[in-house]
């Protein structure tokens, strides 16, 4: 198995590694960098649990080889919060509205929703459903996730009033 040098930025930190050609990006993130917040669900690109941001766009890291990430900027769920103790407004909205149960699809959902809110500050329900349509959740039936993304959008627009919480 051929080995390759790669250099990339993960959650703002420069990383260099030597990886086998066949190693997927998700295995690299989880096994080599020990960033275990990104989860493996199906390994064939359907469930979206392994979503990360590559150059600002969500990708399924099970379908990307680590070598393809050469020179890119990757953000995982561990990179969404402003600091180690804090949470992003989106993460906090997920918590507030119970937009998760087992937590397994949650990192991928947060990545998909984060990317949506970065390009659309006032998404409609349909736009939110479209954005998370490639992320499967078996616990929630999606409703509280849609509500939480909507709440996060309202809060991020600056209308962070107490009545927005519910």
């Amino acid at each position, binding site marked *: 198995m051929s080995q390759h040098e790669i250099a990339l930025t993960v959650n703002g930190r420069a990383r260099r590694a030597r990886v*086998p050609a*066949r190693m997927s990006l998700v295995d690299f993130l*989880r096994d080599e960098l*020990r*960033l*275990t*917040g*990104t*989860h*493996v*669900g*199906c*390994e*064939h690109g*359907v*469930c979206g*649990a392994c979503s990360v941001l590559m150059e600002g766009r969500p990708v399924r890291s099970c379908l990307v080889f680590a070598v393809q990430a050469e020179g890119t900027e990757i953000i*995982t*769920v*561990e990179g*969404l*919060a402003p600091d180690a103790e804090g*949470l992003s407004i989106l*993460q*906090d909205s*997920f*918590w*507030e*509205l*119970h937009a*998760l*149960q*087992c*937590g*397994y*699809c*949650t*990192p991928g959902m*947060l990545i998909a929703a984060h990317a949506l809110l970065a390009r659309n500050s006032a998404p409609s*329900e349909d736009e*939110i*459903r*479209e954005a*998370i*349509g*490639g*992320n*499967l*959740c*078996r*616990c*929630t*039936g*999606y*409703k*509280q*996730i*849609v509500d939480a993304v909507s709440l996060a959008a309202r809060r991020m627009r600056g209308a962070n009033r107490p009545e927005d919480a*519910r």
Partner: protein
Amino acid sequence: MNDAPASFRYVGKARRAREHRRFIAGSGRYVADVELPGMLHVALAASPHASARIGAIGRDAALALPGVRAVVTGAEIAAATEPMMSGLDLPKVLRWPLAVGEARYAGEWVAAVVAETRPLAEDAAELLDISYDALPAVVDPEAALRPEAPAVHPAHGSNLLYRRKFTWGPVAEIFAAATHRIQYRARWHRSATVPIETFGVVARWDASARLVEIWASVQMPKYSDQIARALKLPGNAVKVHYDIDVGGSYGGKRGLKHAVLAAYLARRLGAPVRLIEDRLENLRGGDAHGPDRIFDVEMAFDDDGTVRAMKMRALDDVGAYAGRAPFQLGKPVGAIVGPYRIAAVEYEPISVTTNKTPEEAVRGFGQAPTNFAIETGIDLVARRLGLDRIELRRRNMIRRDEFPYTIPSGSTYDSGDYDAVLQKALAAADYPALVARRDAARAQGKLAGIGISCCLEPSGGNSSFEPLLNPKNETTTWMEGCLVRIDAVGAIVAAMGTTSAGQGHETLLSTVVGEVLERDPESVRAVRADSLWALPSNSPVGSRMAIMLGAAAANAARKVKDQLLAIAAHRLGAGAAELSYRGGDVLLASDPARRITWDALVDIAHRKFHLLPPGMEPGLQALAVAEVPTGGSLPGPDGRVQMYPCYAFEAHVVYAEVDPVTGQTRLGKYVCGHDCGVMINPDIVYGMTYGGIAHGIGAALYERFAYDAEGQLVSGSFMDYLLPSAHEVPDIAIVDHCTPSPHTVFGQKGSGEAGYLGAPAAVASAVNDALSPMGLHVAELPMTPAALGELLAARDEEGK
């Protein structure tokens, strides 16, 4: 027995779930996140045949790969371990983690390869040279019962695993005298819970302690006991760590064979071993398919729609081996008439083995298919009589003033107000407007329909189906434990002995303990004891934890509270009746100025033995073990039994349109009226209900483990086994109602299976309403776009 809802401080209030903080930060700890030094990885070689004799297993090429440590086969496992426990009394139906001698379904694990990395183990598994002699396979459950069918387990003698006909009440007399009778078949094809996280286990053998340690993505009663028995170890030589986050389960994550295999390999190789299913291993070889049922039902009824009696034959295909799965025919006995006053029932459960992936528990443990079968009949009775489906249900429903209500099969429903819940759901759906919308859509030539279902959710997870279906099994308790401790600086810890898979048990414990001790739940830390810590648990099955862990936690907290009161009584020189407990402080009711604070009481208990009442143990901690309310007795000789203690109710109303060309069903408005008594955390109840409805929509419209005639699974990926996404699940509205249970601490009922128990029936009802103008009726789930498309195309063909 329970307090009025209004009197609660924390129970029933909106509260952020305690466990979510780690999940949203990406710092949950799932089994695949467990990293042990020197850990080895397993890949599995699976049978390509549905039935085959296993010949030589050539392993030289695999073992020659650098980094490959072992290839283990069924013969080796069978020599070293006991067969895994079977629920039914089936001494000749033996099951090990790997196929022994014969493979009995396509995808069954035949050999395990252990290597230093998972990719290497997969490479080596492909190099195994396994010879098979293919044997005839039996795939259809009805064909499996014919005398000429090949026997899946020849030593057992036939493919029939269980059959009994129960008769409760004068069924024959009622049918003989009935004005009307209908007969129908309802088919529930196999689907499952299919969590986004597959099953996984890490095992380590500690040679000096002679101890197996297990970390597993599991939701399984008596897991450590069963692992110990299979490995021929004493129970105290198996330590299952329950502080592992489980990425969804909904009943299915049992993983006994995985743990036995991984533990055996870890001991043999002297290194930690990790076995994480990939998605194909999960769907095909994870032994977690769900009920696969053929219901043949008859109902006898009057002109006014009163259903007098029902006969139900339920044939369940459990696949190639039988663990606890056949018990899923037993649990519905406890709600066999649904919410209706059906006076007499004949029930004939039949369990059959075939060459398919084994069945495991699914959310509701057989109740959702049974509810679908009952509700299909209720809709058919309405159609036969030309009566409104809602009116028919109202005429047959058990009325509010009839509780406690004992059904013919011997279970007593605790409480309910079914009509009120249905009326609330109809009001929230604006039913007249929904009918107008349907009729307008039909006028435009669309296939539009409204679905109704009224279903029960038995809760409190007893295990009475064990003695019911297996007379050698005398299980009459399904206890749950909790330990509550106040430490020397006054902080509270509550311990449970189980994993969670999203049900929010840490929130449950902190809320309940906070409620009883009148302390802020945010200050209560919930922890998980491992299996050696003597905290009995039967895991979160059967919608039981709000009831059972809730009871254990409340009782343990009450014991600690009593201890605080006793210390205060001693210090104040007063009788317990003269004291008042307020937020942890204790004061004299007659003279509130005389009080002892929480801090002072804690200090006395932990440090000042000389101030304790004589004979009291120092420290502040208590263990409580709760028995299932109404539990404790064996079924009667006629099979009459109190199955579960509490009965929640749900009424679904859903709007659907079926595309006449593609057969795709689009769901519109969806309302679920729900009564699970007092909700401890409403958001958690709503979340599980929304999720249960989504799961039910999948079972009704998309999800099917389909097999070809040779027994090959043809839906072994998420391209073929379709889970509903945010596009398929509509916006759902839940309408609450609260009828407290008389059997529980706060009036709560269970709710973990909510939504799933009524959604498949409701969606089927909507599709059938849409098809009714064409005179069509379908009683087969899932109603996939392909299935409905074919039906409609055939209808068009006839019309030409």
